[in-house]
């Protein structure tokens, strides 16, 4: 052991003893908030990638058409991006009344047919297809998610203007995921993410949102 080591070990705070329960709870809350934030960023990244792919596909289609202009292939002009944008209109999963147990933080009037309330946290309610065994509250992929908006985010963002229970909202589609943001009557900003599997339109996600109620157990997220 060197003199520096002996000196270091003789000073500074003690490394023994358990932290206070509130300190541990704070660490856990910060971690979970960061995880929600990371999920949101992942959704945005996926949508940006999809948008980039769309642009590239469009450019390739146009270039191919122009290069082949002298040949006999004019039908290529209308293919490509249109199919990606319009994908969610087919076989949308309809809403049915939810008569099962409600979870802390949120209540819902309806759920997609064949889906059920999976789990909830202070920041999120997750709804999954019947038969799904994934009850991880931190895994959002493939799930219908209701999230309290971050207090650090303001405005409704981009997308189609809609009305949810008389208040304005915005619906955006990113990589097949339908995203709705609006403010509920209690002042909570709410984000709803509907996975591509539901094939929902703007009207369907709004209809679902009008049956969502944020209760006193929910809190704003941060970041």
């Amino acid at each position, binding site marked *: 052991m060197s003199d520096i080591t002996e*000196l270091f070990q003789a000073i500074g705070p003690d490394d023994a003893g358990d932290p206070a329960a509130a300190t541990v709870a704070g660490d856990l809350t910060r971690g979970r908030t960061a995880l929600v934030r*990371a999920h949101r960023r992942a959704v945005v990244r996926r949508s940006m990638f999809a948008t980039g792919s769309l642009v590239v596909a469009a450019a390739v289609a146009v270039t191919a058409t122009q290069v082949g202009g002298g040949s006999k292939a004019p039908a290529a002009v209308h293919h490509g991006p249109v199919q990606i944008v319009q994908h969610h209109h087919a076989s949308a999963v309809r809403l049915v009344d939810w008569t099962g147990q409600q979870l802390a933080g949120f209540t819902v009037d309806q759920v997609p047919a064949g889906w059920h309330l999976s789990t909830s946290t202070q920041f999120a309610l997750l709804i999954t297809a019947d038969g799904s065994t994934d009850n991880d509250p931190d895994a959002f992929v493939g799930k219908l998610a209701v999230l309290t908006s971050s207090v650090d985010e303001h405005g409704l963002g981009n997308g189609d203007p809609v009305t949810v229970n008389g208040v304005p909202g915005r619906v955006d589609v990113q990589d097949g995921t339908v995203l709705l943001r609006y403010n509920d009557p209690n002042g909570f900003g709410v984000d709803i993410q509907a996975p591509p599997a539901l094939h929902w339109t703007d009207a369907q996600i709004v209809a679902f949102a009008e049956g969502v109620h944020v209760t006193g157990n929910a809190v704003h997220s941060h970041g």
Partner: protein
Amino acid sequence: MVSTERDEEYRTYVVARRASLVRTATFLACGDHHVAEDLVQTALMRMYVAWPRVRKDTVDAYARKALVNALIDTRRRGFARHEYSRADLPDVVALEPPVPTDTEHAVFAALAALPARMRAAVILRHLSELSVAQTAEALGCSEGTVKSQTSRALDQLRDSLTAAGLPIGARSIDEPATARTS
């Protein structure tokens, strides 16, 4: 609210290891307890997000790396960007940090004069008693860099502490270190 397996594992880890992380962070923050607490909170927050990818046998190494990265990030960005005001003050009463002794004051001042990565190298080697290889992993650099950084750090520390009235003998930095889990 549900408590997941991740939550339980994480909670167990925090209870067992938080005090050790705060101690290491206090040295990295040159005795500033508030900065040290911020470093620990940042590191633990990142660990929670990455928890499924953190192998149980390397969780302490991951924590050390997160702590050092938090220190480097802090110096790059400054703490002001992490602060945001609130309308309501928290109910929790903040405890006053302990008043440093003369020795602590001298040591932390000497550490503060070192560049962040050099400081981290000497702290991991001589406080946490990591091996050169473990320190290199935590810092994301070569073992040779650890040796050179630690050597220069020790020279500067000896000069600073001698000037402050705390002379320490010259000992080899390459003497085997006993690996600890902190």
